[in-house]
């Protein structure tokens, strides 16, 4: 190891503070060695190796939503929506899927699951939940949480969340997740027993806390920046899209007025009457066609929203990394100052002004025994600190390695998903144009007969 016994020459140097993620850093060999160990160390007792492959045999769906009334912790009446989660075993003798479990969960339980995952897998870009409240709505959409359309979109979103977790190479092996799908009662208690809340670093919760990291990892800085930008651009996009939808809705609906007026006008015309009447009908069709079009578009908006929230998950990983780097640097700094003290004691020179220096001057030299004892104490602390630093370094490297692997996975997934989303958006637009052409061609036909 490079952390050799204190070498007087090196002691004067500041502790190595290379960024955690630097692949050229000296501890490469250790990392390779460590790679053989289960990677998801962070998940701790949650890992279920025996379940490593169960995800391949199972289908998950959120098949139903139901409005319920109950009492909350404050014993107040509350209304909430429960979602039916069904799991089916696919690998059955005749290839038919068989229902293995079905249970009800509410949104807050999904939230608990996700919070648990966030704490236990800080190096993973944890899939986001669908929005708690409808955001980026335009006038026709209801912002009501109990609105059937909203509940339905959330049902799809929750199902998507479960599928994302289930298809994640690491998260899918989590025991709590497995129990979430299979054990209705006592699940909350089981989650809380893992003590994940204790592991949660409260510093991470302070959303805007920035830690003065001296030596940030460029990759993570860039990623964090990307996360910020992505979040702002998607939210801008969603805002404008909502307005675009609103206006488009207006354009179509106002055309509906032609339907009525043409029909009324046709009553007083002789030759033109029939043409006007049927053209009016096509205008009605045109006006009502927008409802379906915009409903489909809402699906696209949901896809974008997922990535809006993914951006936040990305930032969470970056924040965690930043925090670890910060801790590492603090430990290194601490170690360096201890080493300096030790050296001062050993050589009798005072490099910096200190209280000890003052007391020495005022009360005379300590006895050699005293000094030896203090040096001893410091040396113990130093070696402890070095151990700590070493383990922090290891931990950090491990984190970076795992996090980066997951980020790479995430990037691929993102590119694939968003491309698909764009394609389906384009397809929606094409179908809207075709519908428009159809309706106006029909109307033109009617006008031409006038």
């Amino acid at each position, binding site marked *: 190891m490079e952390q050799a016994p204190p070498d007087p020459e090196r002691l004067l140097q500041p502790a190595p503070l290379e960024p955690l993620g630097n692949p050229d850093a000296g501890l490469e060999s250790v990392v390779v060695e460590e790679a053989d160990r289960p990677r998801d160390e962070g998940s701790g007792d949650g890992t279920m190796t025996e379940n490593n492959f169960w995800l391949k045999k199972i289908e998950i769906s959120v098949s139903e939503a139901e409005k319920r009334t109950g009492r909350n912790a404050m014993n107040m009446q509350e209304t909430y929506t429960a979602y039916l989660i069904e799991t089916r075993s696919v690998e059955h003798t005749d290839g038919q899927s068989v229902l293995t479990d079905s249970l009800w969960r509410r949104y807050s339980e999904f939230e608990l699951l996700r919070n648990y995952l966030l704490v236990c897998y800080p190096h993973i870009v944890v899939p986001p939940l669908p929005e708690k409240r409808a955001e980026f709505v335009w006038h026709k959409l209801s912002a009501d949480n109990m609105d059937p359309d909203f509940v339905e979109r959330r049902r799809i979103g929750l199902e998507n969340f479960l599928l994302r977790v289930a298809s994640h190479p690491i998260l899918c092996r989590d025991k709590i997740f497995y129990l979430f799908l299979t054990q209705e009662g006592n699940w909350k208690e089981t989650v809380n027993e893992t003590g994940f809340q204790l592991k949660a670093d409260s510093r991470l919760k302070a959303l805007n806390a920035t830690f003065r990291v001296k030596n940030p990892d460029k990759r993570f800085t860039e990623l964090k920046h990307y996360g910020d930008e992505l979040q702002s651009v998607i939210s801008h996009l969603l805002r404008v899209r909502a307005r675009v939808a609103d206006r488009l809705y207006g*354009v179509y609906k106002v055309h509906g007025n032609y339907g009525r007026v043409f029909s009324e006008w046709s009553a007083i015309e002789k030759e033109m009457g029939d043409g006007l009447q049927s053209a009016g009908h096509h205008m009605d069709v045109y006006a009502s066609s927008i409802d379906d079009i915009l409903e489909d578009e809402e699906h696209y908006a949901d896809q974008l929203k997922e990535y809006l929230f993914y951006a936040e998950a990305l930032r969470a990983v970056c924040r965690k990394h930043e925090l670890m780097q910060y801790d590492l640097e603090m430990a290194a700094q601490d170690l360096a100052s201890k080493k300096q003290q030790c050296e001062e004691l050993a050589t009798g020179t005072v490099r910096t002004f200190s209280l000890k220096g003052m007391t020495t001057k005022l009360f005379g030299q300590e006895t050699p025994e005293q000094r030896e004892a203090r040096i001893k104490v410091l040396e113990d602390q130093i070696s402890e600190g070095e151990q700590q630093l070493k383990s922090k370094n290891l931990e950090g490297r491990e984190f970076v390695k795992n996090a980066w692997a997951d980020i790479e996975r995430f990037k691929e997934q993102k590119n694939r998903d968003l491309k698909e989303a764009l394609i389906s958006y384009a397809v929606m637009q094409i179908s809207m*144009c075709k519908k428009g052409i159809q309706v*106006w061609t029909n109307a033109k036909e009617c006008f031409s007969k006038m």
Partner: protein
Amino acid sequence: MSGGPPKALPSTGPHSLRDMPHPLAGSSSEEAVGGDSTPSPDLLMARSFGDKASALFHQTPREFHICSAASDGSTKACQDLILPNGGTPAGTSSPASSSSLLNRLQLDDDIDGETRDLFVTVDDPKKHVCTMETYITYRITTKSTRVEFDLPEYSVRRRYQDFDWLRNKLEESQPTHLIPPLPEKFVVKGVVDRFSEEFVETRRKALDKFLKRITDHPVLSFNEHFHVFLTAKDLNAYKKQGMALLTRVGESVKHVTGGYKLRSRPLEFAAVGEYLDTFALKLGTIDRIAQRIIKEEIEYLVELREYGPVYSTWSALEGELAEPLEGVSACIGNCSAALEELTDDMTEDFLPVLREYILYSDSMKSVLKKRDQVQAEYEAKLEAVAVRKEERPKVPADVEKCQDRMECFNADLKADMERWQNNKRQDFRQLLMGMADKNIHYYEKCLMAWESIIPLLQERQEAK
């Protein structure tokens, strides 16, 4: 006017005559003052109704229902008052597509144009700035083989008030005919710039249409005043000469305006009156719908223009996704351009035709009223004769003359109405088909744009 619906008809006639500005009254300030100088209570009422209607219209911008006939009073108001808030939405017209209406009109004129011997066009508007006033003149080019025209071709410059003079002259000298409407004289100040390119172009087209309608008319096109209007070097001199004639004819029409009830208005004319009421009402609604659609489309356009670039901003962040996102951005840009073209075309081609027909219905109503007056005159005389019948065995000559006059009137008007119905049918067929075409064209452009980016998106996908 806001009272009983059918009675609205007789009361508007005298107004439109009385409100007609004297052709010579203040040649410099005519456009500014004109018929508005003595607003009648009815007119004011109509205004306030219209204002209220349009205010409502704006206060609830997300209400897409446009009422067509809530109460007769308010809708009549809307039809009399050519929506002040409408006009041409500022800054949306592009001169590039302005020739399409002209082409359409010319095509349309050629349908029965085989025996045509008179061609008139209005073009080349010019702004004149004098110390007293600023106005626009238009060049009127006439080509004709008719004997009344000494030269094969004339070119004169006329301003709006000259057109107005011509129309008044036609109304006086051809009282039995339906005179095509002129574009509205007044625009609400501050809403539309009278000297803006779009406004002048819209008016030029309307004036051109006005002259073409007269040119097409078998009687009006031979009118002496029309001839003068097309050929006279100095129209003002001629205007002064014509003064005496005006007062005479004016009086003869005016003195029978009493509230006389017709005994038997021929059914066909009664039906036309009712038809026109509904027609104008429906057109007024269509006009408002069309304007509202354009307004919504422009707002949609504003949002689209912001929407597209967001994808570009996003693409700057991405690697693999950059191209697809940029593609979507460009695509939205193309759709915006297509939408702008659509709104411009609708503003330039669709709305003016509606306006013309709304005004036409007013012209028609006023000529119907004159017809009623002539009939009233005849009936009154006939009644008087009936009283004295025992004394004199023969119907006096002046009553016969009166009857002739009425019958001539009926025949002229009937022919004009038939012609008008025919034109109307053709015009609206073309107008509405044009609307459909423009929308189809718009969707086709958008379709092309979106279809073109699909391969871009998919190709990348497969390449991976």
